[in-house]
């Protein structure tokens, strides 16, 4: 397993006249947690299905552990699809055992592993319970455990947090960290940027089927111009006093007493420098709030507010597909 778990090169997928993914290139290096971000309909699921060989790209190529995806290299992959589903009449333990066996585990090992995972996640009492009798959250947990059971080297999780309550989201985050610690490489898609901020070493952002960013979190934040919000007494021209000190200030929407301004930091200067400059210029400061960089802001800056609004759209929006 020397090769990178995943390399996509110029992968394009069309459904009729609709291009779902356009010339997508990125790679997932060994041992990293990579977030695959974008709003619903951006082409994330289609890209992941191409990565797994479930769909073939119309153009470009996909390499999983150095070669085209097939059943032998897929044995090292655990995949959690966006659209969850299990056999409703199977028990939790049988479900995990079945999927682990399909990935090559022996019957005895798969059963032992299923017991171990169910006990570890607090589902031990529901081993023999049919999936149809479990709560939605429990069933989702069982599906996630089915994905992990064979100890894959590479985990591909498509919107793993969707449908989980905050407590189970935290459990899943812990599980992802534990898998990463075990040595697994992880690629997960999400339209909720906060999960990526907490978990990822790297992110790949997608909008309308095209890659708009690929790099580390720091590199993502660096794409944003840093700045701060400053409120001054009504009528004071902050821009005029800040410009000689090397800062640009623009009027912003008022959010409190006085006039609100956004002060942009030039390269090498930060919030302390801006505040000091304003005080030295005698600005009647009523409030000061350095901006905290968020991935959502990065996405907005890259694709615009209208596109970013789709991040908040319901997760049920599905991509248009045709045979």
């Amino acid at each position, binding site marked *: 397993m020397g090769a990178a778990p995943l390399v996509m090169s110029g992968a394009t997928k*069309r*459904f*009729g*006249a609709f291009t779902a993914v356009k010339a997508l290139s990125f790679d997932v290096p060994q041992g990293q947690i990579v977030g695959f971000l974008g709003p619903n309909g951006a082409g994330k699921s289609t890209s992941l*299905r191409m990565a*797994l*060989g*479930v*769909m073939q790209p119309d153009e470009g190529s996909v390499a999983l552990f150095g070669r085209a995806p097939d*059943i032998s290299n*897929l044995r090292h*992959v655990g*995949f959690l*699809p966006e*659209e*969850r*589903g*299990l*056999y*409703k*009449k*199977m028990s939790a333990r049988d479900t995990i055992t*079945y*999927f682990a*066996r*399909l*990935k090559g585990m022996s019957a005895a090992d798969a059963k032992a592993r299923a017991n171990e995972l169910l006990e570890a996640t607090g589902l031990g009492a529901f081993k023999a319970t049919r999936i149809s009798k479990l709560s939605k959250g429990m069933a989702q947990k069982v599906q996630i455990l*089915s994905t992990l059971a064979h100890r894959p080297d590479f985990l591909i999780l498509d919107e793993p947090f969707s449908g989980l309550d905050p407590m189970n989201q935290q459990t899943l985050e812990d599980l992802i960290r534990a898998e990463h610690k075990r040595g697994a490489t992880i690629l997960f898609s999400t339209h909720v940027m906060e999960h990526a901020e907490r978990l990822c070493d790297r992110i790949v952002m997608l909008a309308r089927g095209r890659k708009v960013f690929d790099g580390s979190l720091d590199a993502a934040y660096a794409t944003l111009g840093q700045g701060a919000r400053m409120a001054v007494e009504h009528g004071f021209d902050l821009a005029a006093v800040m410009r000689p000190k090397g800062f640009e200030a623009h009027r912003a929407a008022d959010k409190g007493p006085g006039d609100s301004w956004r002060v942009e930091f030039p390269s090498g200067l930060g919030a302390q420098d801006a505040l000091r400059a304003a005080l030295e210029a005698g600005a009647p400061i009523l409030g000061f709030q350095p901006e905290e960089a968020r991935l959502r802001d990065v996405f907005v800056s890259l694709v615009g507010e209208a596109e970013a609004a789709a991040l908040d759209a319901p997760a049920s929006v599905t991509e248009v*597909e*045709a*045979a």
Partner: protein
Amino acid sequence: MRNIYLIFRRDFLGYVKAWGFWLSLAAVPLFIIIGGSFGYFAASSSPVRYYAVVEPSGVISEAIDAEFARSEARAAEETAALAADMQVDVSSAQVAAATPRKFIQVAPPARTIEDLRPYLLGEKTVAGPDGDKPLFAVFLLTEDGGALQYWSTDVNVTMLHYAAETAMRDLGRRDALLAAGLSADFLKKVDEAALPVTAFRLRSEAEPETGGSEVTMADRAPAIVAGALAYFLWLMVFSIIQYLLMGTIEERSNKIFDTLLTSVKLPELLAGKLLAVFAVTSTMMLSWSVFAAAGSAFAASQSPALMDMVAPFVAAATNPGLIIPALISFMLGYVLYGAIFMALGSLCDTIQEAQTLLSPMMILLMLPMFAIFIAFQDPGSPIIDYASWFPLFTPFLLILRIPQDPPLWEILAQMGLMAITTALIVWGATKVYRAGAVHGAGIGDLGGMIKAAIGLKPKTA
């Protein structure tokens, strides 16, 4: 192979763990036992009923009574003969004594229907061998003697009415024969004097004439076994429609295909599923067959005559010349139809949608059934020869034609054609299944897929 086995095992256990499977399995033997017992208990528990005949001479009442006596004697003789076959020592008189008559003639308590009404309605009773009872029915000869009226409050029990009709027909026939100066058993003698027509089969010189040239059950058994096998295949294909449709819909609605297809190859998935459904229907039919075979074996052990009847069928069913091509046709036919139904099932999202597919599927399946009917009537018919070249019919008709010794090249050519067609169908079905299961294509997309496959429309995806 391991993945095929795992898919097969899960699907098979999924089916056999369902209550419906065990109900279906138990239903056939249970219904046979219940049906048989019901008939026996209905016969033995029916009450003794009185009837009266109002006529001046007593000829009619004697004739009806004689008809009951005749039918009882006939039934007793048949039972005694069967008992003798089973080496049970019982005489017809003992059988007759053990089965008391259910309709007993009593003297009429009145002569008109008005006066008999209270007896028929149960307001009054008449004395008889089984105690005092109301009358069940009354026969009244009309004043001119031209008709015999049957009166009863229960029109559903028709046995007495039919017995009277038979008695009157025999009486009329006897009177007519006597009037013509002939004896009463003249017609019986005429029947016995007819020349017997014996069927012989001209055998080729190479064919052994172990049983002589006369046509026996051994000659007819291969055609009957082939017919049963063709019908069994048809029944099997008919039975799997529901399993394949519902099973695939469950997986499609459960969104489970993506997970499966990252673990197994699509052909492995299809093979495992087809095998599972085959095993489920086979288990059911084999269980019924074992039940039937056990019943037959028990009956045969009791009666050597039954053993003689079964032997030619066993010989035909174990003849490699018949059974090997028949089994190959059977397997190819099963895969061919199974792949079609599974592919169609993968295009359905709901049971309602699948139900709309059932009608065309039934029509598709009725076509070979018609061909089977024609082949039963006349297996050598040119229509069957021509129809057996049509791949959808070949699995059934080739099985039926084999006992007719068609030329070897025809058997091989039809098997080859069937194998090629099955391979093409499986290839196409895999494509359709992938489109349905992976890409979410529906029934409405099927036309487009076929057009794309034959190059009428550029492929869009």
